[in-house]
């Protein structure tokens, strides 16, 4: 879905999201967080790529061109491209590729080499392969059922890439088990990177504390319960993009 919102687009950065009202009634009541999948600064539009999983996303899918939509944003902290990186590994699981597109564009813009790994249940859930190849980006695919590319988890492909020794940084978005696997893998190789997380949200602006994730307590700050060694951070304002070394993902 493409949305014309020049004021919002002007401020938008890769990795940020919008909080979308899917219904003008009371069902669903809450807004739905959806990542910026495309940012067209010239046209003043953003595009959203979403998977229909429930009422909210179904209502979005039922909208017609020209309809008005209520979006709040851009929200959250997006990806940052650290100075000095030369070759990035970009990993997207399922619909998690959505927020990676604007990042991939900006990596290309900065002349940083990249390999994109896409993982999903099956070939049908692999999104954006053609567009990426058109961009001239190297893409490798893994599916759980082997219907496309490597049969198995995308983290296995990541392991091959990293042990091949080429990437000096990584970016990832996808389901928590994938991110968890990737974080422990990259830690083993001493490879730093950023991950984009998902959590159920209320306000989207840091006011309700619904969307928290565990973070290793920031250095120099007194953790409120040092025995547990973590503090909760808000995915909506402190993230959704976090340093991989910082987050603790539960099973």
């Amino acid at each position: 879905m493409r949305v014309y919102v020049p004021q919002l687009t002007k401020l938008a950065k890769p990795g940020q999201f919008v909080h979308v009202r899917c219904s003008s009634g009371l069902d669903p009541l809450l807004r739905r967080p959806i990542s910026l999948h495309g940012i067209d600064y010239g046209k003043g539009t953003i595009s959203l790529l979403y998977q229909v999983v429930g009422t909210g996303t179904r209502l979005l899918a039922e909208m017609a061109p020209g309809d008005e939509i209520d979006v709040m944003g851009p929200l959250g902290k997006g990806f940052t491209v650290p100075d000095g990186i030369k070759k990035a590994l970009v990993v997207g699981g399922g619909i998690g590729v959505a927020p990676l597109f604007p990042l991939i564009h900006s990596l290309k813009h900065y002349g940083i080499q990249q390999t994109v790994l896409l993982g999903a249940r099956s070939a049908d859930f692999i999104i954006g392969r053609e567009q990426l190849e058109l961009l001239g980006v190297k893409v490798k695919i893994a599916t759980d059922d082997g219907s496309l590319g490597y049969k198995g988890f995308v983290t296995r492909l990541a392991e091959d890439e990293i042990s091949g020794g080429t990437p000096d940084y990584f970016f990832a978005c996808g389901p928590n088990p994938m991110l968890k696997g990737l974080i422990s893998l990259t830690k083993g190789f001493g490879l730093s990177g950023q991950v984009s997380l998902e959590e159920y949200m209320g306000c989207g602006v840091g006011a309700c504390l619904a969307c928290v994730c565990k973070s290793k307590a920031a250095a120099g700050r007194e953790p409120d319960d040092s025995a547990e060694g973590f503090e909760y951070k808000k995915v909506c304002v402190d993230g959704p993009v976090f340093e991989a070394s910082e987050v603790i993902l539960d099973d």
Partner: protein
Amino acid sequence: MTKPADNLTDKPADNLTDNPADNLAVKPAVKPAVNLGVNLGGLQMKNPVTTASGTFGFGPEYAPYVDLNRLGAITVKGTTLEPRKGNPTPRIAETPAGILNCIGLQNPGVDHFIAEDLPYLRNYDTPVIVNIAGNSLDDYAEVTRRLSGAQGVSALEVNISCPNVKQGGMVFGTDCLMAAEVIRVVRENTKLPLIAKLSPNVTDIVEIAGRVAEAGADALALINTLLGMKIDIRTRKPFLGNTMGGLSGPAIRPVAVRMVWQTARAVRLPILGMGGIMNAEDAIEFILAGAAAVAVGTANFVNPGAAMDIIAGIEQYMKDNGVTDVNDLVGAAWK
């Protein structure tokens, strides 16, 4: 009491002073403007709309969407003596026309609030209501003392009713004697207007309201969330990280209106009404049931400008219906 419509002018509400008496005085040749000012147990508000604790952070979060100066008051997130981590996730679940939450009073502690959050709020010309909670009477007493000594705190809202914490919270809120004890202890330690926030998870809201009134509360806030639960039929496990959660939003509004009505008729304290207020019509319903002021909670998540729309909508309703003083609407449904 309502004045005929032809006495009204289109004067904007910001011409009003905070003192309803000033606004009411009919000066010669000046037609009376619409008065939105209310007094909530000693807390003077320029209009009857505040934010519900826990839904509006500490203020700055919503500053891009809401003119904080236009709010009747800002009610901040529940604050405790020590920092609280809160509950594991998921902390929020959607239900028909409502949400369940189990945040668990995550907050940085009262000292952090005073040092880091309160200075920001002092930039605004809006009273700050600090919501407090504790595990013990000593906790409540100490938090009260620290906040009473801090510049920029206008009133205390005492949460004796949070369903999301293991100790304290609802245990205090659902036991009349304990609830009264908490209020008595807070009263002993502060001269600030004291608002007792009641739990709806009780058999008789009027009885508990009466007890906390006797114990020294200046006003009552109701309702907090209704205890609820959701089970994920896929995993066959409770959905929320803390098993149970508090239900808020339009789903609870009829219960809240009923409780405000019952309490307002029985207890002579001003009431801060809340529970599912989404727009001005809902807010007016609470005022007619007997609420002197209203708080906007879950609606902020849906429409970040909800409080602004509600203030404007109440004023418009008054103009449309020839009401010059919002206080004339308080409890009008039973007068």
